[in-house]
């Protein structure tokens, strides 16, 4: 395990880049999916269009998307922005349905009560519908986070450095240790993202904690 000891600094650097490449799209994707999911929920005709449209985007294999984006956007192929945008597309594709279903899980009586109490549309959305939809949205966000961490590693093939670079380096030198360290780091990072979202969800849904411990 001397390789691991000698390269801790490098691995840390790659991990930070990996967090950046997988984490930023998660936040961007959530902010894009919220209005889209709201639209899908509000206008019935848009629901199948948005769900099928985003579903089609999700079927595009990651390596193909990483390579096609520079041509569509005019960016350089090595620019990490391509990876950020590709991961944002995948996140949006996963979350639009989750947001729409989450908003759909809010009981209609609650919405009507809020309206009766004088909540206008935007305020009702921000302070009633969205908080109540958090558990469903968070479940989707956890799936997106874990798969983002895993998919980002493919970007090593187009030369964008992150933990996936350990796979290609190890393979090129027929050396198992970097690959094993890379796989374990990726899995740990996915668990970290998952745990962080779980923690934030608990903070954002105090009523669920109250329900768990009725003391």
């Amino acid at each position: 395990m001397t390789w691991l000891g000698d390269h801790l600094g490098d691995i840390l650097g790659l991990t930070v880049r990996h967090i950046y490449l997988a984490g930023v799209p998660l936040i961007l994707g959530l902010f894009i999916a919220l209005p889209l999911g709201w639209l899908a929920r509000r206008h019935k005709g848009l629901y199948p269009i948005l769900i099928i449209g985003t579903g089609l985007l999700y079927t595009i294999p990651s390596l193909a998307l990483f390579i096609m984006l520079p041509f569509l956007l005019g960016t350089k192929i090595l620019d990490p922005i391509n990876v950020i945008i590709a991961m944002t597309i995948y996140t949006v594709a996963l979350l639009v349905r989750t947001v729409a279903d989450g908003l759909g899980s809010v009981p209609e009586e609650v919405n009507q009560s809020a309206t009766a109490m004088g909540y206008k549309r935007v305020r009702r959305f921000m302070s009633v519908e969205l908080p109540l939809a958090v558990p469903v949205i968070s479940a989707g966000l956890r799936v997106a986070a874990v798969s983002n961490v895993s998919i980002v590693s493919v970007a090593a093939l187009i030369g964008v450095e992150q933990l996936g670079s350990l796979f290609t380096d190890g393979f090129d030198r027929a050396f198992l240790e970097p690959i094993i360290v890379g796989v374990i780091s990726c899995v740990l990072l996915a668990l970290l993202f998952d745990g962080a979202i779980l923690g934030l969800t608990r903070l954002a849904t105090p009523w669920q904690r109250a329900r768990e411990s009725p003391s």
Partner: protein
Amino acid sequence: MINRIFAWLTDGAHWQGYDGIAARLIEHLGYSLSAVLVAALIAIPLGLYIGHTGHGRFLVVNLAGAARAIPSLGLLLLAVLWLGPRFNGDIAFLLPAGLVLVVLAIPPILSGAYAGVEGVDPDARDAAKGMGMGGRQVLRHVELPCALPLIMSGIRAGTMQVIATATIAAVVGLGGLGRFLIDGLAVRDTPQTASGAILVALLALTVDMVLAMVQRLIVSRGLTGRYKRVKTFDPDAGVTSPAPALEHVA
């Protein structure tokens, strides 16, 4: 650049021969379909069994989540580097790569089959038992048909995963459309790389659409409600035809 990609794609010479687009497309389909078939033969019976009996629920629920966290590129390179030297010739990369494709396709199909059976309306199950059906008959005539939509979404998710990973597998020497991407990147042949990416994306989209059509054909209309175009009254869902509600479940 767009013109050069178009020129590359429409050049007849690029479509022929053992390393032409047509041959690579068939290879890609061949790897993907055989991996999904093997995975389905393992995962569907197992998922049905777990859903029907409830044994091993814990395993399935956690497996799907854990599998998502494992980076497919790392798993692939690890398998080839580790298992490869034990074999000679093409088997050295074909077998480990094929194994990884199957392993990656199992969790989504397994959880689809399990969730499908698990989600069957208990009333339907009771009614079947009340009609005198035994456990096997209930599984065969009630649970399996009712679980088909989720089994199919599992197969579709697994297939997409396999097509994407088979593309990456060109790195370890596998054929298929991934060759155009990996070789193109290696020699900086941009039109070839971009064309490969477009072809892979088109293949994935087409296969998913074909599977969606298969799903439409084999799922009972009693489940999708597609034969009754009557507008249902449901104050929460509003006035919609019930077709999209099926996808909703996944």
